[in-house]
């Protein structure tokens, strides 16, 4: 999947460089070529690498992806960071309350027994870093896709629904006994 995407973009770049010349024109063509590179943008390994990087560097936690993991806690915390520009969509982080408090504790060195503003702030920042790391894996997105500030939702029994996304990645991860989900939803790719 990745190979195809890289190859497709490289071919477009080479053709525009030799036939049309001009760096600006090539850059424009490369940006257009991203529309043809859904496979590269949606490569699931980019999401896994981003999650592992953020958790290792910011929390000192090694986490791993596991198939079939779903957050079932009644009380959950969800953070959403929107993408805009070359790609529109969102990065969504979701965990149970206990996991959110553990993550916030790891980030701050504090202990939490409730989902207070510091926990929400920490989870929002984790989602922000995940979104930034993920788009940074694709150079065209790193330069031409902006991030919204994080929004954090807490509560019970809510669902996120996106109508007919271009693509969606939905992965579950584990560290110790804790699990969380990260979803990338793309509803438009230029």
């Amino acid at each position, binding site marked *: 999947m990745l190979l195809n995407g890289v190859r497709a973009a490289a071919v477009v770049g080479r053709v525009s460089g030799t036939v049309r010349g001009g760096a600006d024109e090539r850059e424009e063509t490369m940006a257009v070529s991203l529309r043809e590179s859904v496979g590269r943008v949606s490569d699931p390994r980019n999401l896994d690498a981003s999650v592992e990087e953020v958790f290792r560097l*910011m929390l000192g936690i090694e986490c791993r992806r596991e198939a079939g993991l779903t957050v079932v806690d009644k009380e959950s915390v969800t953070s959403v960071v929107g993408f805009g520009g070359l790609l529109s969509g969102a990065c969504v982080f979701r965990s149970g309350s206990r996991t959110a408090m553990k993550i916030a504790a790891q*980030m701050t060195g504090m202990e939490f027994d409730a989902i207070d503003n510091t926990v929400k*702030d920490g989870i929002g920042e984790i989602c922000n870093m995940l979104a930034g*790391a993920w788009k940074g894996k694709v150079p065209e997105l790193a330069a031409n896709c902006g991030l919204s500030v994080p929004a954090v939702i807490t509560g019970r029994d809510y669902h996120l629904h996106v109508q007919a996304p271009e693509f969606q990645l939905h992965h579950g991860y584990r560290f110790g006994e804790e699990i969380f989900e990260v979803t990338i939803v793309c509803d438009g790719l230029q």
Partner: protein
Amino acid sequence: MVRARTPIEEKGGLGMNEIRALIVDDSSVMRKIVERALRQAGLDALVVHEAGTGAEGLEILKTKPVDLILSDINMPTMDGLEFLRQIRAQNLAEGVPVVMITTESSEEHVKQAIQSGAQGYIRKPFTAEQVKERVLPLVRAA
């Protein structure tokens, strides 16, 4: 040869490890993480001023001397680049190094930050070692 006094010396002859830092980030958690990373980098006697917005950061700079500024870019109301431009436009914190800490990692973002007057750039997520490598030389050179 007599060398000019550094901004740090001008402000009272602080020792190498005694730094007054302004940390601007809309996330209070990130401000704490950046502070912790600075301490891990060896800045033990750190005095930290925190601002949750660029506007708050400007107000602090009008009343308190600082030796180092670290700012997020992606913030509501006034983003980090506008904060940086306002610092320069209002002649605040002259000679004080500014390091941007952000999730944005493209060459274009780095270029924009440098053009706006930043001396350093750290991408989130980061390690304390990266903070040490990029911040300490700027503090020493100030």
